[in-house]
């Protein structure tokens, strides 16, 4: 009986703290748009398996929407040396168990920028009728280079955080390049085809986000809310309020891409 009471009290206590904490989370959204004339990259020249891949492919390294919305900008929580990442919102525990998919389709990668937390399973699959391989070059993580036959796949987990996205490429078809972001903290996002991103349930307070794009590396200059922010590491500081935090349009100068 006594145990039951203590247990109930404990449950109440846990319920209370979770509830209390729920008010302390904020979701950050925003949209990346390129200012100025976007010069699209030259098409990729297919040098192999032309019968299937065709002769030319659009280079997915730089993809913009109809109004210059910038796709594949990655953002992640940036920590100064010695700082500890905040305990993530409970929703991320389940997400970390989900598998991240990186797919070869039509002699390109989908997605162009994949996000994974350390230890999360990444499934590399080949949906093409020809063999591909995944050569992933990590800095903290050991490299990886596996052949994946037509319709094959394999699963791998990266256990160490990478400061910058890892390159993933196919050595048989060297034009195929993509990136994998591996971070310990799940607070990260990549922009969709309309340049939108969303980082859910950050703890309320000040945070630093590092902004990166495959073409430019870290984005050293952005305009946010009419203010030009410059940082050589592409880090911006945000103040997260409870609930929704829309940063609005974040512009990147076309010349800086």
């Amino acid at each position, binding site marked *: 009986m006594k145990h039951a009471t203590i247990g109930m009290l404990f449950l109440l206590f846990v319920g209370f703290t979770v509830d209390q904490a729920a008010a302390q989370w904020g979701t950050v959204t925003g949209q990346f748009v390129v200012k100025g004339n976007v010069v699209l990259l030259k098409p990729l020249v297919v040098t192999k398996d032309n019968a299937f891949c065709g002769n030319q492919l659009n280079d997915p390294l730089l993809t913009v929407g109809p109004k210059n919305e910038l796709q594949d900008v990655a953002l992640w929580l940036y920590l100064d040396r010695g700082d500890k990442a905040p305990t993530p919102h409970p929703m991320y525990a389940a997400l970390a168990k989900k598998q991240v998919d990186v797919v070869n389709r039509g002699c390109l990668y989908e997605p162009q920028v994949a996000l994974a937390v350390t230890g999360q399973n990444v499934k590399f699959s080949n949906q093409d009728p020809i063999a591909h391989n995944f050569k992933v070059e990590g800095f903290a993580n*050991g*490299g990886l280079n596996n052949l994946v*036959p037509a319709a*094959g796949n394999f699963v791998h987990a990266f256990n160490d955080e990478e400061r910058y996205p890892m390159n993933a490429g196919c050595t048989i078809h060297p034009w195929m390049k993509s990136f994998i972001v591996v971070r310990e903290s799940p607070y990260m996002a990549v922009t969709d085809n309309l340049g939108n991103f969303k980082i859910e349930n950050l703890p309320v307070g000040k945070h630093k986000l590092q902004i990166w794009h495959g073409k430019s590396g870290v984005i050293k200059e952005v305009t946010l809310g009419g203010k030009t922010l410059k940082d050589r590491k592409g880090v911006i500081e945000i103040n997260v309020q409870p609930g929704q935090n829309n940063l609005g349009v974040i512009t990147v100068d076309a010349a800086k891409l």
Partner: protein
Amino acid sequence: MQISQALAFGGPYRAGGLVLAVMIGAILGCSSEPAKFEPNRIAMYKAELSLGTKLDPTYQVQPIEKILTETFGTPDKPDLSLWDPKKLVPDLAEERADIQTEYDEIKAELDKALKDPDLDPEDRADIEADLADVKKDLDAVDKQIAAVEGLVQLDMLQMAAGPYGSAEDGTPRGLYRQHCVHCHGITGNGAGPTAAFLNPYPRDFRLGKFKWKSTTTGAPPTHDDLKRVITNGVPGTAMPSFKLLPAEEIEALTQYVTYLSLRGELERNLILDFSDIDVAVLKPAGMQSEEEKEYVESLSADELKEEQTGLKEELAELSDPEIFLPDYLAPIVTKWAFADKNVTDVPEKPEVVLDESIVHGRDLFFKKGGCATCHGQSALGDGQTAEMFYDDWTEEYYDPKNPEHLEEFLALGALPPRKLQPRNLRLGNFRGGRRPVDVYWRIRNGIEGAKMPAAQQLTEEEIWHVVDFVRKGLPYDSLSQPPEHVQENVRVRN
């Protein structure tokens, strides 16, 4: 070095040789500069390009060199005095201490019991069994610590380091400079004086990547892997076999190559982290980029001072052995010390009829294995036509998509990039060795640093078939169709 060459004129020219030697001595000065490890300027420049600013010599470049010298010593005098297992593998050291305490307790118990004349033999057996169990644990931990301590040993490094010669007791000195340095360079950067004339280029050890090994992609080679390469050489390249050296000297060279690799990896990681620290506020005005200048000017005097102090503290912390040993050196050392864990086991080769196995192997070569996509329809290594085909060592400084900085890297000592060639399998020549097990490892694990992927999709049996096909099922060109030599009429040509 030059002096001894001059003397070799010998005979009637001896006097001339001596005069020449004296002249060279007079010009160079009798004591030449001690050998120095070259900083990894390529990695530094790469960091500078991505940052858009120069690294600061005082706060970034020199501290890295200082840490490296403290941790590894110099080419003449290797120094491992900081390599304390308590700092490199603190968990293991602690575990060992705990088990030792337990062992001592049981031992004391046993000693006490043995003094008791009425001791029950069964009790005695129990205590002894306990003691034996704990001893086993102790041995297991000791073995792991020994792997860390044995990775590089000072007496071995001393044999390989320094100028060529011998110690007073006759043990050799300077083996690395005697046998390796002209290709691999003092620093192990694969850019010794002869490097540019060789194809393939000598290995740059500083990435810690090696091709001919038994471990999976991403893992360092084992001690035995490196030793095998030094002993057997790399057929088809300029790397000779050192089989005729005494075992101890090969051991010394193996450890020295490991030492240079560990040093190179530590350096790269330090460059990455030191360059990540924004030292704009500490830089002399002339060194700052526009951006940095703007930033520093935007600070008030107090802010500037505060930032400077904070930054100096941060840099001092990074340069503290208490920090850099566990944070930077330990992960690299443990990776190497326990490389055995990543060895790919090779199952016994099944008994098969060779001709049948070759037929299976050929089928796999073209279909499931995907080998023909790069090695070509006739295995001549002509299947890959892409332009962007370079190995990892080249991609350190050369991005075929953005070649605009190549000239600058070449000026810093990088070798002109050469396209990677898939191996022509019809030469009967396999760089990583032609034993079945060597070919098995290449196919199963791929080739580190090159483009060859790991054939994880093939079963063990299938890999053995491909091994048979590659080793025995292909015609060797010299035997099959030697190109006919046609005498050229020089007069007609001219």
